[in-house]
């Protein structure tokens, strides 16, 4: 920790504390494929890593620069399309695949500089509307400019036709994952460092109070433009990685829906902390792939989670985690364990019960007539049997009622965990 002696403060000294998260991150990226090496798992982890790059790049705008973009998938998608064209070009045989994301990055940067030159004139609603309009425009262009976007089929290519890189041809999934993980690490580190540069600091200042920043010698518009361009660069890198992983780019990579997803991911993770979007991307891809396999209704659940987060926990998952910092520094985290078990756990069980009911209703309406069997939470259930409804009804009602009843206990424990104990008065 920093010493109180200001005159001898070692500015910018790199301490173990600042490096530790990065070392842990690198170890996780290195070890994960060894622990989970199946093709499916590697693909999911690769997809997550790409989303993390995209989410961090998006948060350079939203969290750090205060710009709400509804069309940011454009920059990632354009990177993707360009990289696929490179993969299809005759000179691809002399391009090592690992540098391809950089090409995507520079293309994203170029597009962002062109669009940013007018869209960053203001933040707020005008910026948001321009980004939305451009997002729609680009999606329409996909079907119009067939030469570049390939129409409805999109553009596809083969990653293994590049110049072998020290003998690697990136045919196997694990090689692709490590390539993506490398770029994830480099991009995340660069984006983190960017937030510590003069222009990165001023991005925060302009977000908080653009007018005041102008009276300190900075053009709010230039500061926004630099952030916007940098964000476009990293989006383009994510696009290049996506081209390598999926070997295809289509309209769905840059349309407004894709832009909505990244906004959702970043909000879910939390805009207020650098690492928030990382959590958001990991959780979202998990929900999409794992929950998506279990139920057709996964998007409904994700939507409800999103709305609940925005309404009750605007700081996102990172905000929820960091709200425990005070209790932790006071050494009172233990006070929360019991109420979490008696209140939050029943709430979760109750909500799962509710989900069971929803799934049964959905099954009754959607399944072919006569088919009444379904699998819910790994158990076979007959939806035409009253017992199934009763059991899930009781779980849902019981869990939620118990949680409600215990909520005052939780609140009390929370308050207590977040107040500094005043030492008991000494007897006189």
């Amino acid at each position, binding site marked *: 920790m920093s010493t109180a002696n*200001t005159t001898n403060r070692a500015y910018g000294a790199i301490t173990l504390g600042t490096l530790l998260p990065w070392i842990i991150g690198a170890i996780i990226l290195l070890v994960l494929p060894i622990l989970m090496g199946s093709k499916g798992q590697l693909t999911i982890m690769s997809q997550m890593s790409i989303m993390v790059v995209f989410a961090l790049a998006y948060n350079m705008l939203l969290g750090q620069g205060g710009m709400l973009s509804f069309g940011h998938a454009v920059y990632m998608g354009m990177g993707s399309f360009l990289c696929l064209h490179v993969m299809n070009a005759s000179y691809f045989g002399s391009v090592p695949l690992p540098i391809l994301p950089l090409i995507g990055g520079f293309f994203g940067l170029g597009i962002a500089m062109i669009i940013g030159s007018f869209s960053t004139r203001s933040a707020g609603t005008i910026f948001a509307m321009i980004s939305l309009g451009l997002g729609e425009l680009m999606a329409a262009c996909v079907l119009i400019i067939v030469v570049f976007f390939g129409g409805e089929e999109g553009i596809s290519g083969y990653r293994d036709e590049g110049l072998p890189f020290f003998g690697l041809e990136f045919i196997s999934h694990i090689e692709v994952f490590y390539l993506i993980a490398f770029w994830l690490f480099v991009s995340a580190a660069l984006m983190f460092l960017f937030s510590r540069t003069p222009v990165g*600091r001023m991005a*925060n*200042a302009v977000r908080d*109070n653009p007018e*005041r920043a102008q009276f*300190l010698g*900075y*053009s709010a518009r230039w*500061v926004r433009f630099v952030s916007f361009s940098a964000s476009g660069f990293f989006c383009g890198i994510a696009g290049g990685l996506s081209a390598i992983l999926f070997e295809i780019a289509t309209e769905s990579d840059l349309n407004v829906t894709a832009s909505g997803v990244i906004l959702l991911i970043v909000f879910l993770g939390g805009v207020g902390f650098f690492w928030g979007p990382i959590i958001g991307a990991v959780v979202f891809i998990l929900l999409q792939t794992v929950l998506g396999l279990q139920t057709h209704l996964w998007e409904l659940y994700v939507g409800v989670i999103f709305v609940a987060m925005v309404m009750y926990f605007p700081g996102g998952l990172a905000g929820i985690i960091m709200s425990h910092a005070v209790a932790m520094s006071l050494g009172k985290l233990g006070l929360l364990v019991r109420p979490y078990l008696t209140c939050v756990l029943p709430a979760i069980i109750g909500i799962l019960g509710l989900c069971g009911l929803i799934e049964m209703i959905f099954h009754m309406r959607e399944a072919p007539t006569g088919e009444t069997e379904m699998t819910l939470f790994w158990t076979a259930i007959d939806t035409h049997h009253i017992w199934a409804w009763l059991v899930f009804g009781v779980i849902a009602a019981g869990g939620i009622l118990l949680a409600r009843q215990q909520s005052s206990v939780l609140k009390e424990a929370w308050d207590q965990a977040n107040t500094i104990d005043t030492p008991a008065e000494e007897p006189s």
Partner: protein
Amino acid sequence: MTLALELDDLRKSFGSAEIIRGLNLKVEKGERHAIIGPNGAGKSTMFNLITGRFPQTSGHVRLHGTDLTGLQPFQINRLGLSRSFQITNIFPKMTVFENVRCSLLWSMGFKYSFWNMVSRNRALNEGAEEILEQINLTVRRDLPAGVLSYAEQRALEIGITIAGGADVIMLDEPTAGMSNTETDYIVNLIEKVTENKTLIVVEHDMGVVFGLADRISVLVYGEIIATGTPEEVRSDQKVQEAYLGAALEDH
């Protein structure tokens, strides 16, 4: 030329209402100049015109002989003019230290750099610590500026204004809403940090004005009705009538 600031028939209308009605003023380099006048006289508007917050309707502002017409606030700031605001205007979500450090960046030549780490520059960080020391906010260093008390935020407002080392400093009612002790403290601070600089200050507290200012201008209904040393202004017949009259109207 030793003029720091010169106003030449400066005018401003909002719609059909002419709020600033032809200001002429010369402020010498190194002078401490106070602007007094009743509420609504146009003092803040005059500041906004000089610093580029609003465009003037007609007339000219010259800073060290350079015409400022058409320049943006950030361009004017880079020419060496810095201002504070009557209504506190800080970066509420950033820490106090970060507020001050950001105010130093441009003047220390960092511009839009994305290849320097702010935490690694000794001069920058020590400069920011020094300003914190001067405005007595070292103990609040790592708090978000938004949670400071009113008086502390006013001190930070001044800190941000003077941090960049501009040689013309404009303060809009720096002591408004402060207790006597706080006022004394701020006035001392202003005297200390504006040494050898040109100061233009809007102030209501006559004690402060007569103690601080080399010269005073009286602004009433968008016009400067008198300019001079404190003694000259105090004994001016027009000022007695207009300012006293207006002050009575106010209450």
